[in-house]
């Protein structure tokens, strides 16, 4: 019987140990740890009310939108330190044409995505053509983009903040794609049956789920599919594992990396679009330090700094841990002067726990 003949080159691995060797396992365990910690220290203060959950998910979602493509890029063995500056730059590219030149919002958005994608391609080209470390190339872009942002904004507006986007975006066809709330009807019904609390004026405590959370989930799933189910995903792992060997096998390493730089730049533009349309303003300082936060989320998520190993789902957990720790401390009542100490310690503990779980899982194979 054919089905009983087994290929001796393929090792049989049980479903459980296959699950245990996934890169995101440690991050998932770290997430559970962080949630347990806050359930004990801040469980009764509203952190886990509907309002509290949306509160930390919104912070996680914005970071997660950046972290998913950054994870792919880091698996391919490269860094993009320009994403934070790109957020500030993209925000200004959206706001200035809309506020000062009377462009419709949808047109400024398309323009912004095109320009940012182009700069991402330039980053990628500079990395693969010069052979310089991407750390250095994108560190250069980090400063150049901030300078360009400031120079353009002050030159055109005489200020460093451009507000007034809300009024212009109200009837724009793309507005609700970036700044709206989804499932308002469901939320209202849940509030009616008492599952979601109400505000003093009788409205539900949340009016819906911010659309950024949907973006986060969709983007993470898309990146996961790309990484694990597509040929492009294999190229990413190959490029980050051993680029020369990959090239010899016919993997287009340069093209793969450039594509990934375009993706991180577009994610930064998406982040900016969401923030500009939600807040109604753009600011030259937006996105400061986001490049590091994205890398932290990706590393907490189990991706190796050296490339070749990692996942997009892990980055999602990393962003979730970051968001929960960021917001959770406010509910615990700890003096906020100690905020950064606490946050740093939580991060290190989460990563340590994460790698402990992963090592245990790997050994058990």
């Amino acid at each position, binding site marked *: 019987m054919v089905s009983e003949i087994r290929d001796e080159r393929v090792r049989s691995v049980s479903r459980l140990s296959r699950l245990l060797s996934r890169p995101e396992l440690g991050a998932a365990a770290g997430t559970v740890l962080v949630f347990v910690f806050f359930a004990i220290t801040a469980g009764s203060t509203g952190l886990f009310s509907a*309002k*509290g959950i949306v509160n930390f998910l919104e912070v996680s979602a914005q970071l997660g939108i950046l972290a998913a493509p950054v994870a792919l890029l880091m698996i391919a063995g490269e860094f993009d330190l320009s994403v934070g500056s790109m957020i500030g730059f993209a925000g200004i590219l959206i706001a200035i044409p809309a506020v000062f030149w009377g462009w419709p919002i949808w047109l400024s958005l398309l323009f912004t995505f095109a320009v940012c994608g182009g700069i991402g391609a330039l980053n990628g080209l500079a990395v693969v053509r010069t052979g310089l470390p991407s750390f250095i190339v994108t560190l250069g872009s980090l400063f150049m983009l901030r300078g360009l942002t400031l120079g353009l904004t002050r030159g055109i*507006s005489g*200020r*460093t903040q451009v507000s007034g986007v809300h009024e212009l975006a109200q009837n724009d066809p793309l507005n609700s794609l970036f700044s709206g709330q989804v499932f308002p009807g469901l939320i209202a019904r849940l509030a009616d049956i008492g599952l979601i609390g109400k505000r003093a004026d009788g409205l539900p405590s949340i009016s819906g789920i911010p659309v950024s959370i949907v973006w986060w989930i969709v983007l993470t799933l898309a990146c996961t599919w790309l990484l694990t189910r597509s040929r492009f995903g294999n190229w990413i792992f190959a490029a980050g594992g051993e680029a020369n060997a990959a090239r010899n096998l016919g993997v287009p390493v340069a093209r793969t990396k450039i594509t990934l730089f375009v993706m991180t730049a577009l994610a930064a533009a998406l982040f900016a679009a969401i923030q500009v349309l939600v*807040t109604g*303003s753009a600011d030259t300082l*937006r*996105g400061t330090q986001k490049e590091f936060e994205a890398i932290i989320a990706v590393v907490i998520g189990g991706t190796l700094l050296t490339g070749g190993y990692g996942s997009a789902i892990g980055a999602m957990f990393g962003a979730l841990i970051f968001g929960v720790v960021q917001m959770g401390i*406010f509910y615990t009542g700890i003096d906020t002067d100690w905020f950064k100490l606490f946050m740093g310690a939580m991060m290190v503990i989460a990563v340590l726990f994460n790698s402990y779980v992963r090592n245990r899982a790997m050994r058990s194979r």
Partner: protein
Amino acid sequence: MFSLAKLIKPALGLMAGFTMMAAATSLAAADETRVVFVTHGQSGDPYWSVVKNGMDDAAKTLGVKAEYLAPETFDMAKMGQMIDAIAASKPDGMVVSIPDAAALSAPVKNAIAAGIPVIVIDSGGSKLTHDLGGLLFMGQDEFQAGVMAGERIKALGLTKAVCANHEVGNSSLDDRCAGFAKGLGVDVPVMNGVIDPTEMKNRVIAYMTAHADTQFILAVGASGAEPTLAALDEMGLSGKVKTGTFDLSPTILQAVVAGKMEWGIDAQQYAMGYIPVAMFDLWKKYKIMPIADYPTGPGFVTKDTAASVIELSKQGKR
């Protein structure tokens, strides 16, 4: 593929361009008044952006040459070196801010000893300015402005307040919070915030959830005030929980007009940029200099006056 020669050529061209530009500026007419600002405020900061606009407008109107310099981070050692370097280039007047007297007193004193007239703006205060031999101090005493804000809130009968600081570690923002507590006469907790507007907004929501008895939120700058307004809106507390802020922006002024915000405190920092340029021009031409300090703030912009300055705020003058 990549060739070094290809990269070097444009780089050399660029450098030659810069050198020519520098040479051209140094050949400018010697009788033109030259004023240099060395401050701790990056021009990317919305507050300092207005100072720089004041300086630029004065320079254009009066035909004076004015330059604006600031270290790219809050680095007092570097700012001291910049003051030394500018002093060596012998400008007709130097405008400095002194956020750290210990680190900057010596360079400022040396510049004055070398015969350069100095006006101090924004940080440093009157006493330090005159001790060092500066001509005069222009600006807003942040602590005193905070005290006045606190007194106004006390007059409304509110006692439970919080100071939402979006940039912890900046001493002038600390002064604003501390002055506010003094004026209100009770302890005021400081909520540590961030520049990122989403995180700032959500932190205010978290703080208000955990401290629901808070009656007043003081923001210490536009980057904290706009997310605070959004947070109160989202919680349905807009207008119920009172709020006020230091500094102005179009969004803040609209909120003041709509009654969502009590007031914005205007340091009128445009004057800190404009007037020193004019003063040094008069000083160079006619040896005229005002004999007293010039306090520019605090100016409280309230519901009655906010509408009239929105357009000016959009232009970066208020």
